[in-house]
């Protein structure tokens, strides 16, 4: 029975008791506890169920490597699944629930899988559930999915907030143990800008538990003085609760800081994601103890030896009254000493080595503890809790020589350096056979932007496991007990038969046993990656921190090859899981992406505009009135614009100024038609193609002066086209004298459209906007009322239309003035949908509707806008290719249904027969289709095979359901074919 000791506990504050619950049961702990230490201290040994067999599981570790003790934490919107209790700090009111069982932790129906474990070996699902075919989808998979999964599902949106910050330093030291402290001291004294980060709340790492002397001082004293010195250095920044999740290319470290996990709802950000740019990274990430594989090594009460002494020394928690220690090395004897020092009982030490002479074993023996050499554990007794162990000869096949009663087993299979950060960007490892570990190979480091090493490893993370080795590597003297070499024992006993190997666990959470890895090897899944994927070894939430090396060793043995020949799997970030909230940070809801606002945006908002996202803009789709449907609003806006006058916020249109002696030559290359010949004061519609010949943008170009043109682009295209211009000017025609500037946001632009548009402008006064002074396709500038206006007589609706550009700061005032002055004329704003319908009524193409990246201007009947005189323009060569000149390309036509209905969006026209792949042949498709309130019926444009030659022909298009629609091919201009209305 685990329990809280009456004294001791270097990390807890007994003056600050904290109450929490586990599965609804009230429990108590202290400030400084982790959830795990508090659970153990409260006697809760069994804390969860495993993934596959639903076996009872207890706490194994005391840190980030814990595979079993995951709980659901919190409730409602603050519920969080899969919280690792060993790294979660206890806080007042914490509500925890165990996972993966039904109906309860104590009685779990899913445990039936454990009864049938023999039928459920690694990969059994690849061999079964295949017949009958439908059963997988309807029977097997639903059952498997129901039983899979681990934590509960959050039900509500996350109410907490998260933030992200940058940090820059010369040297980042990861790990606040003694190696990290010493490395930070060294770099700090050298005047470097140092960041020192530690994932737990505490500095010093394992050393305060394991003991020893550093630089002639007691370890804790040395740590205290190191911290004092570091704190005094202005060039050193120290942070706890900040984990280095990944070391990415060019020295980019993602840090994950816990800020408010223990104070839910206090308003502070819960987590902070650090983007640390480090000149160099020193990893001092320590090492993780390995379990040993023996039958029943997963029964609650079996723990890592280091964890047992951590719980005793750090939190004054005794994991058991009588502990058996099982080991292949000397370090585990420190646990025996810690247990004895706490006044508890060590029932025996089972050492797989034939002889033990080291200082630590001697010290343990001297205190009267039985040390059984050359022995192993054949089997752990107990189901929900350890009740004893059967001892056998390690060299044998598991015949029990003795049974020892106990309620805790402390195991140690040696230590593995934490090499994750080193490996994330390709740092290589080397196998150290004496120490049975993969350690960083300094000759093959991860390299950075300049090709040199971007990381160094110190301390236990480098394989320097003992205190003298660790500190010696950093030039500091240290003393601890000498340790004899470990024995490479991975499994107990060496000749364990099937019955034992089928109960010897490697990956606790995923229930991967020794027998599974051996099965994978036998079936040819020989690559370590195959074995991992076939058995799921190392794929649980601890990502194999405990299991990988043991699994490798078992696999290597099964294949009869040395461990380095097997190699490791790849280490992937993050080191331990990080919340998606922290990765997201503030970028959600309205802040999900930047929102570009026109100067009139607040007016549209106040009028309740219905929005349409266009790039990062949000444009009014329509302005529905109270009780009005969107469709009716659009129809009203169109009718009013055609009858009276409408206003469109056209500020999002791209406005790019092209200026310089070679500007005309440049535009002639960019546009398919001639822009250099455009007279000053006039406007011309132009098309831009990419080098593949496809139409990519269009718009009206105005010549402002002898050497200056203003190019209007589509709303979505402004930045892209500006970049495109810069590309050609900087990278191809760099000797041409041209400047371009994107002035899209410097101007507000309002389209004043409709037969009463001129009346409205004249009410503002100040400028002559008569037909004579400002005819169609010209522009002028001056004072329109009080506004500094440049007015373009261009039309995308077919109506009399002025587009008025004013400095952005005057945009809202002009809009409001036009609305006020136009009231008597019936002015109304209109949105993008009305814009679209009106342009379709006129047969004007829309980039993105009539074009889709595969359409060339010739397809759209725009040959008139392609200069025949020019020897070159971007896209011209491409348009000469055979497929582009194919006479059978689909061409733009108008389409109307015989019954006046609206053709569905995306409708296709089938042709006779089927192609070689059995697909119905096609002869056309709709590109734009709308109800036209002006015409009173559906209108459409589409691309049809030989379309322009088939005027009046009736063909079928696909309808909403299986039905077909009869459609007549017509001229694409449905409204005012002669263009009289725009030219008044």
């Amino acid at each position, binding site marked *: 029975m685990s329990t809280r000791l009456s004294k001791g506990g270097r990390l807890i504050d007994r003056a600050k008791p904290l109450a929490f619950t586990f599965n609804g049961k009230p429990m108590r702990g202290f400030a400084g506890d982790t959830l795990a230490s508090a659970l153990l201290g409260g006697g809760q040994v069994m804390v969860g169920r495993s993934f596959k067999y639903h076996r009872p599981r207890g706490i194994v570790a005391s840190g980030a490597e814990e595979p079993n003790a995951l709980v659901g934490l919190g409730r409602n919107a603050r519920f969080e699944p899969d919280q690792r209790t060993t790294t979660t700090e206890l806080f007042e009111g914490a509500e925890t629930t165990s996972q993966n069982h039904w109906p309860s932790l104590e009685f779990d129906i899913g445990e039936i899988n454990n009864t049938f474990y023999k039928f459920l070996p690694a990969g059994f699902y690849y061999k079964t559930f295949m017949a009958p075919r439908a059963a997988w989808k309807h029977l097997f998979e639903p059952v498997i999915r129901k039983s899979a999964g681990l934590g509960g599902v959050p039900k509500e949106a996350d109410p907490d907030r998260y933030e992200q910050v940058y940090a820059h330093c010369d040297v980042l030291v990861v790990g606040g143990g003694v190696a990290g402290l010493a490395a930070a001291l060294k770099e700090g004294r050298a005047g470097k800008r140092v960041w020192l980060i530690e994932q737990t709340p505490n500095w010093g790492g394992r050393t305060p538990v394991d003991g020893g002397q550093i630089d002639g001082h007691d370890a804790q004293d040395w740590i205290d003085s190191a911290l004092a010195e570091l704190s005094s250095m202005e060039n050193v920044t120290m942070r706890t609760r900040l984990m280095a999740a990944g070391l*990415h290319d*060019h020295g*980019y470290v993602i840090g994950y800081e816990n800020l408010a996990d223990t104070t839910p709802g206090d308003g502070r950000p819960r987590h902070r994601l650090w983007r640390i740019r480090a000149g160099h990274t020193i990893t001092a990430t320590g090492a993780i103890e390995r379990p040993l594989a023996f039958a029943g090594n997963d029964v609650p009460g079996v723990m890592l030896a280091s964890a047992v002494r951590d719980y005793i020394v750090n939190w004054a928690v005794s994991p058991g009254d009588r502990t058996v220690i099982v080991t292949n090395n000397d370090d585990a004897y420190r646990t025996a000493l810690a247990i004895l020092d706490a006044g508890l009982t060590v029932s025996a030490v089972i050492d797989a080595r034939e002889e033990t002479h080291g200082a630590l074993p001697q010290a343990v023996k001297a205190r009267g503890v039985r040390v059984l050499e050359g022995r192993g554990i054949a089997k752990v007794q107990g189901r929900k809790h350890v009740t004893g162990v059967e001892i056998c000869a390690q060299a044998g096949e598991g015949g029990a020589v003795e049974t020892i009663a106990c309620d805790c087993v402390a195991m140690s299979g040696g230590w593995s350096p934490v090499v994750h950060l080193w490996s994330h960007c390709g740092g290589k490892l080397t196998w150290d056979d004496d120490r049975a570990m993969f350690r960083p190979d300094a000759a093959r480091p991860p390299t950075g*932007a300049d*090709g040199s090493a971007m990381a160094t490893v110190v301390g236990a993370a480098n394989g320097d496991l003992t205190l003298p080795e660790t500190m010696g590597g950093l030039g500091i003297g240290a003393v601890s007990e000498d340790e004899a070499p470990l024995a490479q024992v991975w499994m107990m006993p060496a000749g364990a038969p099937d019955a034992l190997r089928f109960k010897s666990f490697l990956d606790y959470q995923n229930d991967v046993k020794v027998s599974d890895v051996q099965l994978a090897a036998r079936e040819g899944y020989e690559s370590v990656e195959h074995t991992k994927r076939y058995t799921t070894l190392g794929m649980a939430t601890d990502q194999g921190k405990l299991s990988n090396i043991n699994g490798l060793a078992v696999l290597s043995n099964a294949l009869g090859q040395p461990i380095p020949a097997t190699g490791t799997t790849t280490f992937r970030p993050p080191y331990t899981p990080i919340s998606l909230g922290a990765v997201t940070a503030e970028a959600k809801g309205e802040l999900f992406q930047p929102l570009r606002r026109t100067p009139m945006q607040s007016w549209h908002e106040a009028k309740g505009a219905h929005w349409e996202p266009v790039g990062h803009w949000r444009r009014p789709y329509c302005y529905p009135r109270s009780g009005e449907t969107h469709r009716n609003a659009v129809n009203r806006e169109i009718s009013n614009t055609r009858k009276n006058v409408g206003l469109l916020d056209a500020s999002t249109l791209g406005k790019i100024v092209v200026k310089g002696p070679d500007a005309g030559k440049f535009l002639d290359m960019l546009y398919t038609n001639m822009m250099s010949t455009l007279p000053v004061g006039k406007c011309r519609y132009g098309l831009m193609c990419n080098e593949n010949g496809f139409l990519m943008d269009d718009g009206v170009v105005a010549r402002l002066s002898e050497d200056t043109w203003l190019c209007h682009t589509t709303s979505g295209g402004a930045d892209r086209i500006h*970049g495109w211009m*810069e590309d050609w000017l*900087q990278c191809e025609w*760099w000797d041409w004298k041209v400047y371009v500037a994107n002035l899209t946001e410097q101007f507000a632009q309002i389209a004043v459209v409709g037969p009463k548009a001129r009346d409205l402008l004249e009410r503002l006064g100040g400028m002559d906007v008569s037909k004579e002074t400002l005819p169609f396709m010209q522009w002028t500038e001056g004072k329109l009322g009080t506004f500094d206006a440049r007015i373009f007589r261009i039309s995308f609706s077919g109506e009399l239309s002025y587009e008025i550009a004013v400095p952005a700061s005057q945009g809202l005032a002009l809009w409001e003035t036009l609305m006020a002055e136009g009231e008597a004329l019936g002015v109304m704003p209109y949105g993008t949908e009305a814009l679209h319908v009106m342009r379709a009524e006129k047969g004007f193409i829309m980039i993105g509707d009539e074009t889709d990246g595969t359409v060339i201007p010739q397809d759209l009947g725009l040959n008139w806008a392609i200069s025949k005189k020019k020897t070159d323009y971007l896209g011209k*060569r491409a348009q000469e290719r055979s497929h582009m000149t194919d006479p059978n390309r689909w061409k733009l036509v108008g389409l109307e249904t015989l019954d006046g209905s609206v053709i569905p969006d995306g409708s296709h026209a089938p042709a006779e027969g089927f192609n070689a792949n059995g697909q119905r042949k096609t002869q056309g498709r709709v590109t734009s289709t709308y109800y036209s309130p002006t015409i009173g019926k559906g209108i459409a444009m589409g691309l049809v095979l030989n379309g322009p030659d088939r005027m009046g022909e009736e063909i079928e298009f696909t309808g909403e359901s299986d039905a077909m629609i009869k459609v007549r091919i017509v001229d694409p201009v449905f409204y005012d074919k002669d263009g009289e209305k725009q030219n008044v």
Partner: protein
Amino acid sequence: MLTLTCPCCGVTAEETEFAPGGEAHLKRFGPGSSDDDFEGYLFARKNPKGVHFERWRHAYGCGKWFLAARDTNTLEVFATYKAQTSEPPADVIAKIKAKRPDWEGYK
């Protein structure tokens, strides 16, 4: 996450401040060129596992395009240089040669 130094404004910044633009030193083929040349210009991109020359734009900085010599297999950046050149400058070539003696050179 790369860091690059813009040779135009001198700023060293995160990859997110730049926009990648594909292979550098492309020779444009326009009207009158052969089908093969034109296809090569548009599509036959160099894609070496190793030393590569490419275009970048300091999109959220000075706005200038520039060129980078980079190893696609280690992400080492040998040099960045101005875009107004039809082939890598000699000092860039020499720098790469010094670091990658087996490199066959720019071609």
